[in-house]
């Protein structure tokens, strides 16, 4: 009877059962992708997800990344009372904060999932499992994509936490040996070589639907461009010329173009943030959501609901956003609103102002602060999404406008290709101004300050603001203040060490290899 002690799960699968064929590999590759979108295998309603110690909905990758990049800046502020959520904006987060911990855990969990896939997808294992021919080519592409996803997650770790622990597919999973810590500079070098190494196996950039959602070569180039744009911050050595190279590569050979066609329900710009944004020609790498099949309380569901008032009143109608009711949380400081000199002409500057005060006097009153109108659960023809809670809209992780602006900034910083840069910026400007030249700028206007502001106008609430402000040395310093920066109403500078988040105390406790970031 002692063999009765070898009970095994009836329906859950073992490693060998999962990876028995190419289809199995694809389901785990899909797991690696879905790590950016869903919060756990049992769906949003389950009591726990992948990451423990944090509310499951809050633990979503995009939601947390967005919070760290936007709520810490002038672009967004939130009126909720979740533990630590005000800390983002007040810049008084601690190493034991549940949100600082949750984001870190989500990023490193994603890397672990990727590592485990890659350990099973070596040439030797693929061959041993009899995967050949077209399947082999396909799985090799997926292998390169999972390496890209891992690089993306490591990039976020590098950008947010600086010096995270580091492991690859050669490190065992399931043991207890804690990983070594890496440095920002070493991680930069690793990511650079990794992103270049996968170039051969990645799919070519394509607008075709049968490739939608998958990371192509252009996604890796865009990530390289981002890496190089911020290299000065990450390594102390500027790499703007390389940024220019890779941004150009995306622009020249990616086949992407700005969405310039408005509908009678949606401006051209706003079509990037609606349920049918999967048809937008400018999205390079999306995180794909679906109201029925890819549900979470993070992602675009969060981005759509959080700014909307809880119920319909004379200023709000949640149904216009394609949702039953909003969550009444996020709004912006006057700084973002003031970026738009003319919100009537610039189609990007859409705000709910009725019933709201522009000034943010209180951080617990939703009626303080104007509310940007961006993500919605309706299509460009006005049709509501499939579900009133979970949103169909995809999250544009990378899109062409960002690449244009990276190109322009790198051009200005290296004083190269300025006419080309001006062309790209004016493509963005004219799209914003209803395909007119009304907003176009001249070469003289193409300054670094202008580009930072233009990035905010074009890319607000898309998760790049914190990185941009750090690159411009305006995140922590007194050079640029916004309401409640540093926790005071008028805004104040904070120590520069706040440019990095702390390694969570929970990981420091169990991994003696880790050293805390300075200042924490």
């Amino acid at each position, binding site marked *: *009877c*002692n063999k009765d*002690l070898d*009970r*095994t*799960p*009836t329906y859950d699968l*073992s*490693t060998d059962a999962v990876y028995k064929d190419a289809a*199995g590999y*694809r*389901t*785990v590759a899909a*797991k690696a992708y*879905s790590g950016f979108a*869903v919060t756990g*295998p*049992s*769906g*949003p309603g389950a009591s726990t997800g*992948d*990451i*423990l*110690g944090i*509310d499951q909905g*809050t633990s979503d990758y995009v939601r947390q990344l967005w919070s760290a990049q936007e709520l810490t800046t002038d672009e967004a502020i939130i009126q*909720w*009372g*979740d*533990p630590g959520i*005000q800390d983002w904006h007040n810049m008084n987060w601690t*190493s*034991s*904060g*549940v949100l600082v911990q949750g984001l870190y*855990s989500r990023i490193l*969990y994603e*890397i*672990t999932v990727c*590592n485990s896939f890659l350990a099973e997808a070596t040439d030797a294992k693929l061959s041993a499992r009899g995967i050949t021919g077209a399947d082999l080519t396909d799985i090799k592409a997926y292998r390169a994509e999972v390496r890209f996803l891992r690089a993306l997650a490591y990039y976020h770790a590098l950008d947010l936490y600086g010096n995270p622990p580091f492991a690859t597919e050669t490190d065992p*999973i399931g*043991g*207890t*040996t804690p990983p070594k810590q890496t440095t920002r500079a070493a991680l930069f070098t690793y990511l650079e070589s990794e992103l270049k190494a996968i170039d051969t196996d990645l799919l070519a950039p394509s607008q075709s*639907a*049968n490739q*939608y*959602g*998958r990371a192509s070569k252009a996604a890796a180039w865009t990530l390289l461009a981002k890496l190089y744009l911020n290299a000065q911050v990450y390594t102390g050595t500027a790499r703007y010329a390389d940024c220019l190279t890779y941004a150009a590569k995306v622009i020249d050979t990616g086949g992407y173009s700005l969405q310039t066609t408005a509908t009678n329900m949606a401006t051209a710009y706003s079509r990037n943030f609606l349920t049918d944004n999967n048809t937008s020609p400018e999205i390079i790498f999306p995180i794909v959501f679906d109201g*029925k*099949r*890819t549900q979470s309380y993070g992602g675009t569901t969060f981005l759509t609901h959080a700014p909307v008032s809880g119920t319909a009143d004379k200023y709000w109608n949640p149904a216009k956003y394609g949702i039953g*009711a909003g969550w009444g949380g996020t709004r912006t400081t006057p700084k973002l609103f003031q970026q738009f000199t003319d919100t009537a002409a610039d189609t990007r500057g859409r705000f709910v102002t009725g019933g709201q005060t522009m000034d943010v006097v209180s951080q*617990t*009153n939703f009626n303080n602060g104007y509310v940007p109108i961006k993500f919605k659960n309706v299509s460009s023809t006005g049709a509501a999404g499939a579900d*009133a809670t979970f949103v169909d809209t995809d999250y544009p992780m990378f899109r062409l406008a960002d690449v244009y602006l990276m190109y322009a900034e790198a051009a200005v910083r290296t004083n190269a290709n300025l006419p080309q840069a001006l062309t790209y910026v004016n493509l963005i400007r004219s799209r914003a101004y209803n395909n007119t030249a009304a907003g176009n700028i001249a070469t003289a206007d193409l300054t670094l300050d202008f580009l930072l502001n233009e990035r905010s106008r074009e890319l607000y609430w898309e998760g790049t603001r914190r990185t941009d402000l750090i690159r411009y040395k305006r995140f922590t310093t007194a050079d640029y203040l916004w309401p409640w920066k540093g926790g005071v109403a008028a805004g104040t500078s904070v120590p520069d060490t706040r440019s990095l988040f702390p390694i969570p*105390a*929970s990981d420091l*406790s*169990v991994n003696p290899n880790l050293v805390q970031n300075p200042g924490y």
Partner: protein
Amino acid sequence: QAQTGSVSGRVLDEKNAGIPGATVLVAGTSLGVSSDADGNFRLANIPAGPQTIVLTFVGYNEVRRPVTIVSGQNVAVNAALTVNATELGEAVVIGYGTQRKQDVTGAITTVTAKDFVQGQITNPEQLIQGKVAGVQITTDGGAPGASTTIRIRGGSSLNASNDPLIVIDGVPVDNSSVSGAANPLSLINPNDIETYTVLKDASATAIYGSRASNGVILITTKKGALGDKLTVNLVSNTSLAARYNSVPVLTADEFRATVQAVAPQQVGLLGTGNTDWQKQVFRTAMTYDNNVSLTGAVGKLPFRASIGNLEQQGILITNRLIRNSGSLSLSPILLDNHLRVNVNVKGTWVDNNFADAGAIGSALAFDPTQNVFSDNATYGNYFQYLQGNGTPQQNVPTNPVATLMLQRNRSTVKRSIGNIQLDYKLHFLPDLHANLNLGYDVTRATGNNLVDARSAGSYFNNPLDPTNTTARGGSYNYYSQQRNNKLLEAYLNYTKQFNENTRLEVLAGYSYQDFVTTAPAYDTYLGDASTVRTLAAKNPFRTQYTIISYYGRANLSIKDRYLFTATLRNDNTSRFGPDYRKAYFPAGSFAWRIKEEDFLKDSKTFSDLKLRVGYGITGQQDVVAAAGSDYPYIQRFQQNVPSAQYQLGGVYYTPYSPLGYNGKIKWEQTSTYNAGLDFGFLDNRLTLSADAYYRKTTDLLAVIPIPSLVNFTNRLISNVGSLENKGIELNLNGNVIQSEKLNWSVNANATYNVNRILSLGPQAANFQGIENTGISGGTGTNIGNYRVGSPSSAFYVYQQVYGANGKPVDGVYVDTNGDGKVDSNDRRIFQQSAPKVLLGFGSNLSYNRVSLAFSLRANLGNYVYNNVNSNLGNYQGIVGSTNFVSNVTRDANNTGFLNRTQDRYSSDYYIQNASFLRMDNVTLGYNAGKVLNGKGSLRLSAAVQNVFVATKYTGLDPEIPNGVDNNVYPRPRTYTFGLNLSI
């Protein structure tokens, strides 16, 4: 030829009925025999000469008869044994057998039917609430069949189970949750229970090894006895339960005045009604509990059969429980008194009508100036907040009466527990018994939850179409669950009386227990029960685990004074990997019956004095709640549910998600030291037991952060750290007055327990601990923290600063770590939710035919987080929305807080002293004596339960299982009229 003779005779009880199984020994020899089914015995080959025949039976006084044996002749010895009035000879149920109370070496408390809590008892564990030192029983509110938290000597674990093992008639039962029944024990009819035995220290529990760390509760059900005449017993209780207090919220008029004062701009949102919503959702509830049993013996077949019917309304409208139960026990003795057979079958059929307890919370907050009803039939004629176009507003409170009335949440749960136990006394070696116990515990549960499409709260559920103003959703889901648990136990028991002074009992056994739970996956629907809302998961749920054990015990009694017990159990669980699943749990104990020593033998002061010391190790392997499965050591991939797919290239993939696992997970071990003294005074009219214990849990099963990048989770159930419980227990029983007419007995017990976490593994200097215990409000806010050096139930809060007026200053907290700023690291450990002291007191006074009994219970040193006030004790409800106003608790008028803020949720202002004294029960009984021409006897009783609660706590009820007071189903005051007729 040897010169031998024989002795024969009959052993009789006080009613002159034969006692089967009594031991007959020739003192100073190894000769002995047991009496047969009629009490007859015959003992041959006794050496001629003067001898002493010793007749013993558990629960009876020993009889010693000097006889003179003459070779070749028989001497007749008939003896009537008298019941051991001192109770020391009472048989006590222990693991795998019984023991005379005087031989017990561990910490064991027995409660028999006569001492059970009276009144309307729905769940079996309520029978001994407050009756046993060291045992804390807390119901999760006043719903019929509500779940109960039982803690014996504090919790020994952090994330593994802290529930005791419950064994019913030899079948360790599955105490894991049952779909459709809040409390699996509510599936047992309390009327069938004869005794409770609580095994508390390791020497008593170690025989149950792996599952014994949190104590063991042995339940024995009533049985027939040989020679009993046929008796019909009818027990009928009728009860009325009424709410006796309310959460202090504002009345309609006070609310109007407060809105006017606080936010005049909101006055327009007020209604014209005067509704006490708490009154609307609660009612006075009736309970009918009828039980009939037939006990006796047909020929040589003793039996007991019973049926019971309970219909209990909850005080929350629409809440009801119906329980039909039946039990049958047969206990024949066969094969010339060599084979004792025990057959027990219990079956229960429970129908639950659950009520949404969320309505309790919304009844507090719902605007008291609104009426219950409206004339809008679209929403069931209930008042709801509507938009101009007639559709419900979203994110507004919903009418709590409508919530309850427009939902039907029903379940049917059937459970049967049964076993057949064969105890065979070997013909050729009567000292050796072979015992075989085959048991089962089977549950079938089904249920469905229908939310009516008229429910405004489910409006626009799905599908969404903003142009459709009549789109309503509702919801319907169905569930079922099957549990099939099997038990096989076999043991050998050898008892040898070596001589007059030395007795050895050795037991060795094997146990196999297997647990299987399955639950199909179902689609969920809209309220029309046909439109699919959410697809079922691809796979149904199935889980299985097995425990295989070997165990042994030796009891050695020398001179009836020095008692030694040693046990060893080897447990193997399928929940751990092959290298870790096996564990040994040893225990040893010693008792010294000092009273029997020469220097005390003649003492008039002491009628009993016994010292007990024991040490043992017990284990814990129930990690399911923390690990999420019965397979925590296996690397598994779970297929995502249909709502967690991912689309790539137009194809939806259902990912396989790797799950965190701990290949090295193993037993948690608790070492227990126990020392106790049992005193008896005045012929044991007064008995006192005092126990001191120290329990240390090592290899603690805790969910702790693990290094990133080494597993598929950030927190993993691991064997890490340690915690301790130490305490003192006192138990006093006194027959204060004993006379023919007037009798008064009292029971008092007291427990003091200190719990402390000793280690949580490696710690960084600024590691703040592991937060736990979520609260309502502020997503993800936790109020507890596991920290080294603190109790596991400690709160983790800011220290509130108070103004000169004594009121809390909003948002101002003490910089407890002195770093010049107040942030989340300034929260500190403050008080605990577990009581430090438990007190119980019971009194039973009778004069002639009238009796009056009551029981009191007190918890001291326990604190409660008043989540009702932290949510509603501010004016957020009044100023927070432009669409509605909602009610606030009176505390809002004290604090004047305008809104809810996150940090305030974590203020120690809301941690309140919840020490209390509760009178659980007063029962007035009248024994009408013989009725029906002397054929029957009748007893009548009237009982009041939950008579009063004395406490400083300002919320509804200070007795909260996890220390967070939120949405608690009020415990009603219950008036019961009972009738007990025996024919």
